[in-house]
Every structure is written in C-alpha cells, then in structure tokens.
C-alpha cells in the first residue's frame, strides 16, 4: 500500500491501495504536534494502512 501526500500522483503511477500522507516532507508525522501526539497520529495512520492491506478491493482505492 502506498502512503502518498499527493493523491493524483499515486493514482497516476498506478498504486491500488492508497493512504494520503500528512505533507510532502513528513507523510507520516506532524511537527506541529507534541511528540506523544505525533506518535499517536502515526500509529493511527499505520492501523489504517493495515486495514487497507486486509481489505479486498477491485480498483484503485484511497483509504
């Protein structure tokens, strides 16, 4: 599964399971948050990524 901030790029290159990232320089983080909050956000994103991997899809899908 592809974590990518610019969704159209991910769609163009043909990724099938897509999770939008937070921002280009920190797709799986957010420097505005406290360290604890940031890790929480990252875990939440990764749980979503795991859900995507275990979900049956028939076409390109953004989660």
């Amino acid at each position, binding site marked *: *599964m*592809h*974590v*990518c*901030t610019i969704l159209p790029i*991910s769609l*163009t*290159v*043909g*990724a*099938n*399971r897509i999770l939008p*990232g937070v921002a*280009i*320089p*920190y*797709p*799986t*983080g*957010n*420097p505005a948050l406290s360290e604890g909050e*940031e*890790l929480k956000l*990252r*875990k939440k*994103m*990764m*749980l979503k*990524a*795991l859900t995507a*991997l*275990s*979900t*049956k*899809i*028939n*076409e*390109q*899908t953004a989660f």
Partner: protein
Amino acid sequence: MGQQRVVHYINQFFGQIGGEEKGNQTPIIRDGAVGPGLALQKLLEKDATIVATVICGDTYFAENTEAAIDEILQGIKKYEPDFFIAGPAFNAGRYGLACGAICQAVKDNLKIPVITAMYPENPGAELYAKDVLMLKTGNSAVAMKDALSRLSGLALRMINGEELGFPEEEGYIPQGCRVNIWAEKTGAVRAVDMLLKKMKGEAYETELPMPVFDRVNPAPAIDRIQDAVIALVTSGGIVPKGNPDRIESANASKYCKYSIERIDDLTSQEFETVHGGYDPVYALQDPDRVLPLDAMRQLEKEGEIGKLYDYFYTTVGNTTAVSNASRYGEAIGKDLLANGVSGVILTST
C-alpha cells in the same frame, strides 16, 4: 562520395524461401538484392548498392539468437559493408526482434550505421529502438511501398552524412535523446502558448510526453494480518547516518536494504534523509516522519501484525527515471516475496 555498400537483412518469408514451415531456415547470404531489396535498390539509385542479402528464418533466429548473429556477422564481413538495413518487419514479432538484434550486433561489431523499420508496437521496437534507429511503419506489408520509400530516403541521408532531425519530423521511433536547440521563445512563453491552445481546444504538441505507467490488478487482501510479515519501503531517501552506500540525492542509481532488527525508533543520531527534492528539516529531526518504524514496532508488539520484516528498502524518488524506478520496484518485490513478506507499506514524499 563513392558508392556505398549496403547489406540487407530479411526473413525467410520476404526472402522467398517459404512461410512459417521454413521458419527454421539457417542464415543464407545471397549476392545482391532479394525480395523487397529489389525495390529498395531502385530507390537507393546510384548512391548505394545492396551488395548482399541475408535471409534467415524467424524461428531459427529467435531460438538460436547468438549463433545466428555470429553466423551472419562472419558471413557479411567479406562484403565490407558501409551500411546495414534490416526489414521492414511491420508487426511481425519474431522478425522485428531479429531486425533489432541483428542491427544492434552489426552496429556494435562492424561499427557501421544501421537502420530498420517496423510497427511501433512490434516487441522488437520496445527492446531495441533506444539503440537502433527504427523507422515507424504500418502494421502489415500493405504498407511496404510507403515504408521502403521513407526507409530509403532516411538511409540515403544517413549515407550522405546528413544530420537527422527530430523523430516526429523524420518518422523514426523516439530514442530518448536530449539535444540542445535554439528556441525563439522561452519555455514559459511556449508553455503558456500550449495552455491557451489546450483551453481553446486547438491542436498542440507537448515537448515532454508523459511516461506511460503500468496498471496492475490489486493484490488480494491479506487474510490474517495478525500473522502477516509486513515490510517498510520508502522513496523518501531515509538511510543510515552518513549514507554508507552513497544513494544519490537525485536520479538515484540504486535502492538499498538496511536492517532494522532490534531498532524500535529511528533517531536523528542514527538515520537521516538524503532526498534532494523536499525540505529535509522534519525528516532529519525524526526520520519516523518518513519511515514510520516506531509506530509499526509498537503495533507489532501489540499483536496487530505478525512481524515487522527485519529490513527496510530505500531509494530516492527525485527525478528518478520511471524505467529505473520500475526496475528497483521489481527487484524489491522479488526479494520481499522470497523472504515471506506478505504486505508492504511504501511511503513517498
């Protein structure tokens, strides 16, 4: 300039040996022009003479490529050719592959200019068009007359040492070369001109065609993610501090694989990014912001996945050619499969 000596390559069908049943024909070399070579000779007129014609069965060439190339190279040397023409092969797959392969071999070994012609979707085009000049033709021999007239025209100009123009003007398959030219208008003006034409619905020609990307069917869902081995891959340029394998910050020539066994968190003391295409400040402070190892390690401990694979794969996706990136992707995919990984989280910046 004196008369140039040309050798022409054709298959068993155009060489009038026979059809598919004669596909196993080993290379034959005849003096002078044969088959389509006769018409080609007329078009080449006095500037060039087809001194010999190589005829080879498509199946023989496909199944014994190295031997066929050796035999042909040996056989045509004594004709001391100045120029080599193969085909046209139209959309005949094995014939196209043979034309591409023999042209490449002649160019590399005899150091003479070569040209072939085929339909752009012939598999020979995909494989050899980058190195071998290939004229675009229609998809069947119905297009023979047109193909030969353009083929001879281009060949004559090459023989006379003329520089060829752009692929669109000359009708050959683009070879991916970049050349400097003088343009009357700056890039910005040309881009706006193009945009205005596009908005008006007028015809315009892009200066940079977008690459065609593969489409693949979605992989099946992972059944029991709690037991699965999951790997992390990134094009965000995360590497061990010091970039031990010197991955380039743009147009990366490789991907690398690094161990994360027993690492719970990527720290700025041990990891960094070498990607040259985004502001690295945030990833340098905490590389987990690009390669989410800390979160995945915790989820592994909490039993959300079976195991986090012991290595991560990394490259720099910054102006990296699609062809190279595809190659890295295929190699990484093979390695992951061989190591029992069933799911991948790929982050890109």
